[in-house]
């Protein structure tokens, strides 16, 4: 590294930023349009917040936003612990391949096929449960959407957690147990702090997946709209009204802010914790590494 040209490094960064910029250009343009009084395609520009004001005065949208947040949180709350358990099972399982295939299966099924299948499944299930037991449990509603969301977000959360878990050494759990910890204490005090980044990333990922999901949500909901389904349906019925730009801008910005803050949090947290452990005034690690024998 010492001999590599500083310009090569700068060029790499320029390339990276260039690619990101090109990818994000349409999004930036949408944000730009959402603040322009003259709307899409106009050569003139005048800053305005009108579309956002309209947006927040629209009760339907606010309702959709509220539903979305609830749905996303519920999906995170269900998916992440289930994926964590699945990852722990996978690590200790003797016959891993069949389990892995089962876990990843939802990834290989196209969204609309899975959504349609679930729709038919829930409809039938509800029909028979109703006919035989008089139960109305699987009528299309927020929790049929919820089940659909859990099904398709779980493989992602599972893989993310599994990756962080693969670095964990099981001897540490055994050491904790031999120090007197119960299985739960060993998990919570020793293993979890080390796989926390994976768990947090999977939370963020599941949240965003659920937030942006359209097909399953749209087919499985029982008449309520999430932010995304509202935006898409609005576009399909009314065309590209300026409010749509405002909504799209908000969705993109929310997603980006969640991801960026998560990355920053993860990067700073490890350093912070380690310096806490080391205590104030102790030299950084690089200085203390030498001369231990």
């Amino acid at each position, binding site marked *: 590294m010492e001999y590599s040209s500083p310009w090569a490094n700068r060029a790499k960064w320029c390339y990276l930023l260039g690619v990101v910029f090109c990818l994000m250009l349409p999004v930036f343009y949408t944000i730009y349009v959402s603040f322009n009084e003259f709307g899409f395609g106009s050569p003139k520009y005048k800053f305005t917040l009108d579309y956002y004001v309209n947006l927040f005065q629209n009760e339907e949208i606010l309702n959709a936003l509220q539903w979305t947040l609830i749905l996303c949180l519920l999906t995170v709350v269900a998916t992440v612990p289930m994926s964590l358990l699945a990852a722990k099972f996978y690590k200790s399982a003797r016959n891993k391949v069949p389990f892995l295939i089962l876990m990843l299966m939802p990834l290989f099924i196209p969204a609309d096929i899975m959504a349609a299948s679930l729709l038919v499944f829930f409809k039938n299930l509800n029909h028979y449960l109703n006919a035989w037991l008089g139960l109305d449990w699987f009528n299309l509603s927020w929790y049929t959407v919820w089940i659909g969301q859990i099904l398709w977000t779980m493989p992602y959360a599972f893989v993310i957690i599994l990756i962080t878990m693969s670095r964990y050494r099981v*001897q540490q759990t*055994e050491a904790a*147990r*031999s120090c007197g910890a119960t299985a739960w204490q060993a998990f919570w005090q020793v293993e979890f702090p080390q796989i926390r980044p994976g768990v947090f990333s999977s939370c963020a990922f599941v949240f965003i997946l659920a937030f942006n999901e359209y097909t399953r949500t749209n087919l499985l909901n029982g008449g309520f709209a999430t932010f995304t389904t509202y935006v898409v349906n609005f576009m399909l019925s009314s065309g590209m009204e300026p409010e749509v730009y405002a909504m799209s801008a908000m969705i993109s910005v929310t997603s980006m802010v969640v991801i960026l803050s998560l990355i920053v949090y993860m990067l700073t947290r490890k350093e912070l914790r380690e310096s806490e452990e080391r205590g104030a005034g102790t030299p950084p690690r690089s200085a203390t*590494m030498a001369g*231990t024998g």
Partner: protein
Amino acid sequence: MMTEYSVEVENLGKDFGPVRALNTVSFQVRSGSYFVLLGPSGGGKTTILRLIGGFERPSRGHVRLMGQDVTGLPPNKRGSTMVFQNYALFPHMNVERNVGYGLKLRRLPKQEIRERMEAMLEMVGLAGLNRRMPNELSGGQQQRVQLARSLVLGTDILLLDEPLASLDAKLRKEMCLELKHIQERVGITFLHVTHNQEEAMTIADRIAVIADGDLIEEAAPREIYETPQTSFTAGFIGENNLFRGRIEKVEADHVTAVLSAGKVRVPRRGLEVSEEQEVTVSIRSELLTLTASPPEGDGNQSLPAEFVEQVFLGLTTNYLAKLEDGQQVLARGIGEGEGESFAPGAPLHIVWETKDGLLLVK
């Protein structure tokens, strides 16, 4: 209450699916002693330790710790604690939180935790490193922290699973002696697994030799070295020359054995043997000498051989010779040796005192 034996293992066995890792093993470890399970890799010694610690469930048999049957108990309910080969420190905790971990679980007062932790770090020679993270410690220091983390709990039994295996040779020797001294100071039972015979000889009060899922034999280090009971132990410990043959004549205190290279007389050691029985004669390499002419009299035994080469190792020199049937024989002398010197291929006799031949029937 102090029991005579802190660890008692009774007909203990373990299968992993169709694979039998441990046949059926029984032994007892006297309280306050340093007991070593020694054997080649894959022999089942770590399995025994893990069964005693509660990390595996036995397929058969019982484990008693301090007189109490703990076979069905998880590791945290047993009166033992374990030091692992490596990677077992909690990487997100500094040295003092690692060492204090078990005490904190017991909800001891903070002041007491601090005092006991400091005393233990002092004892293992890590005073002042409280705030270091595990990745800032050398391999030897990490093992010391593990040792402190276990000893601070004050349990009756400490299990050590190849604790020195990942250290370099010099550090391993130092730590070996230190482990022994620490054990003498704390006075609890240490049960230590290793494949390194020098390590075992240095620290053990008693050694159990484990191989192929069986306990081959158990004795004090000197006995194991000088009078092994089986040809496996004789081959595994020390550098012994093993000659296979059969018994031709049985006398009151000697037998005559026919080996491929000749007949020799060996002390019978009270063994029940019969003529034509297959036996092994073992002779320690340091008790063999090479001479050009066969010795006179009954006090010595010899076999004809030819010289191969000599290898100077500093403290000792190894002399290699070859019997007529091609079997290599090793003789060791101190320094460069004062005996005769031979050219490669020169005929000679390997000689030992009759009393040094060890008859093995197992």
